[in-house]
């Protein structure tokens, strides 16, 4: 068993891993709640197509990005040095904020658009892409 590299951003690694598993559990629970809403034919949910879409997007992105964090903690973070700690924070923040943006924008939205919280989504999306690009670059550089 090799010693951990002193230059690895262990704090970012642990944060990503923890938030990944917590997020996975949380967003999976939302999935069950949505299935229950379908099963119980809850009018408030079924009648509002945009709310359904936004909550479905929140669930799907939440689960997918939480998985991404878990994978990142095991296969991505070890590639990053302490100097690249902000990349971990960017990815972790984006993975949390993006599905949250979808979920929050489903609350009290206007007829034709998501609520104002939807503004979080493109910003988080941009952060996610930058973070992924940084990890990809680190992977490229790594021996």
């Amino acid at each position, binding site marked *: 068993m090799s010693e951990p590299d002193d230059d690895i951003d262990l704090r970012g690694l642990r944060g990503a891993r923890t938030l990944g598993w917590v997020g996975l559990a949380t967003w999976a629970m939302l999935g069950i709640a949505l299935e229950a809403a379908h099963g119980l034919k809850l009018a408030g949910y079924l009648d509002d197509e945009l709310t359904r879409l936004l909550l479905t997007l929140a669930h799907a992105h939440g689960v997918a990005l939480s998985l991404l964090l878990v994978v990142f903690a095991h296969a991505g973070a070890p590639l990053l040095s302490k100097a690249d700690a902000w990349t971990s924070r960017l990815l972790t923040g984006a993975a949390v904020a993006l599905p949250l943006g979808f979920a929050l924008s489903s609350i009290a939205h*206007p007829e034709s*658009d998501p609520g104002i919280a939807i503004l979080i989504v493109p910003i988080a999306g941009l952060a996610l892409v930058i973070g992924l690009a940084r990890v990809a670059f680190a992977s490229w550089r790594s021996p």
Partner: protein
Amino acid sequence: MRIAIAVAIGLALIALLGLEAQAVSRDLDTPRDLHRVDFVGSAACTRCHAEHAASFERTFHRTMTREATRDTVFAPFAGETLTYGGFEARMTTEAGPEGARFVVTLSRGEHVVDRAIVGRTVGSHRDQQLLVREDDRWVRLPVAWDIEEARWIHMNEAFLTPDPPGLDDDHVALAEYARHVVTWNDNCVFCHNVGPRPGLDPASGRFTTEVAELGVACEACHGPGADHVQANTSPMRRYALHAGGLHDRSDPSIVSPARLSPERSADVCGRCHGQRITDDVSRFLTHGDPFVPGEDLALYSAPLFVDTTIRGEEVFAARFWDDGTARLTAYEFQGYTQSRCATEGALTCTDCHGMHEGDPRGQIRPSVAGDAMCTRCHDALARDGERLEHVSISPSLEDEHARVACVDCHMPRVVYGLREAHRSHRIDIPRPGARTSDRLDACALCHLDGGHQPDRAAAAPIDDLFAGDPIQRVIVASALGREDVAFTSRERLTFLLESMRDDRYPGVRSVAFASLRANVDRAIGTTEFSPTASSRVRDAEVVRLADALSLTVPSPDLHASLRARASERAIEIGE
């Protein structure tokens, strides 16, 4: 260095957002001339306003005019026939290149007079009328489908004109049979569609009619929407409006009747629910009605009133009671403008009627059903004691009048349209007692025996069923359909049977028949009675019905003297 780049990018983004916000703000402050804007159709509106589209989709407005398809045609077209005046109309379905074709074949004896293929339908609530294409125009057929009663009717039954000569000999002239065959392009097109342009060429008399959308759709009330759709592809603009909604900021690229003044809002409805006249008929027939929602309707046309003249003649007087109240439907706007609630208050059509809510029949807002709308202003009358004092009824009569609503007295059913009596939209105060108008007062519509009249020697309102003009007869025949009028059930049914047999107007007989069915539909079972049948056939069926109801068949002489006084004028209904 990295921080500097990030700050620079951030500042650039903020600057871009600021510029966009400024542009949006300028755009929202720029008024639009909707005359120059194109229509886009309701499908484009539905993309963003799905809930509003769905709520309007339920209404009879939306399905006013449609292409004739299996989904839109209500009648069976399975070989049914309708005979009238020696003609037989036979309704069949055949296969066409684009699906089922609905065919009406008119024949007299062995001779086929006409064979028409139905292309469009008009109406989806009470009657469904049928349009056929003839060269450059669409023409309404003389037969229609009664949706509620699921039977074919001849259009003569829906209008207040007397039986044509030859009816009792089963030989009505074709011109009389087709009396209410009208051209759609210069008539129905204006109010039953979005953005109508009749396209009449004055030189050739030919039409090149176009409509933006069949039926009454979003843009009929909200104005043409191309600019609105284009402008709101910008999310910044949309969110500015969503936020602005909190501060009552509206979008100038579209009209929201809810944000208009009461007068301008009523104009939107009045365009169709108030028959009008214009000085520039040829412009209307060529280019269409220039009015767009939000404008003053009076810029282009004036509502018809009892004293409206054409070349010095009051040609529309028969459409009004002599106190100026409209006696036909599609004059609701006139009634509204004659009401103190509008002239001294701030009432508008959409206070009571919601285009996106309520029962499609009447579209009354659930929140103002019953007396709720009236008591918003006349709040004292919500209290029982005050209410009784208001109607000057003694406490001993309290129970009798407990179910009387504000509109029963102030918007009585004295208006005729589509074989029914409707509420007047002139909100006024009933003056029971000495009759000063040819119009029955609200009290008389229940007290048909005249029991409420101080002068017991005065003619009873029921006399109008025999001695009145066609609309007076219709109004009484309709009132007799209610159980709470001042006659026994047997008396009411006898009056109705007499009207069904002896009235010279099929329209009056039709309303009397509907009132009879409202009372005893189950008791009479299937009946062959037809308001447009010959007197011989009607007589026989009335005898059968009287027998089924254990009633004595009324003698034709019983009210002959009253009938002799009846006015037999035809009431033109705005075609």
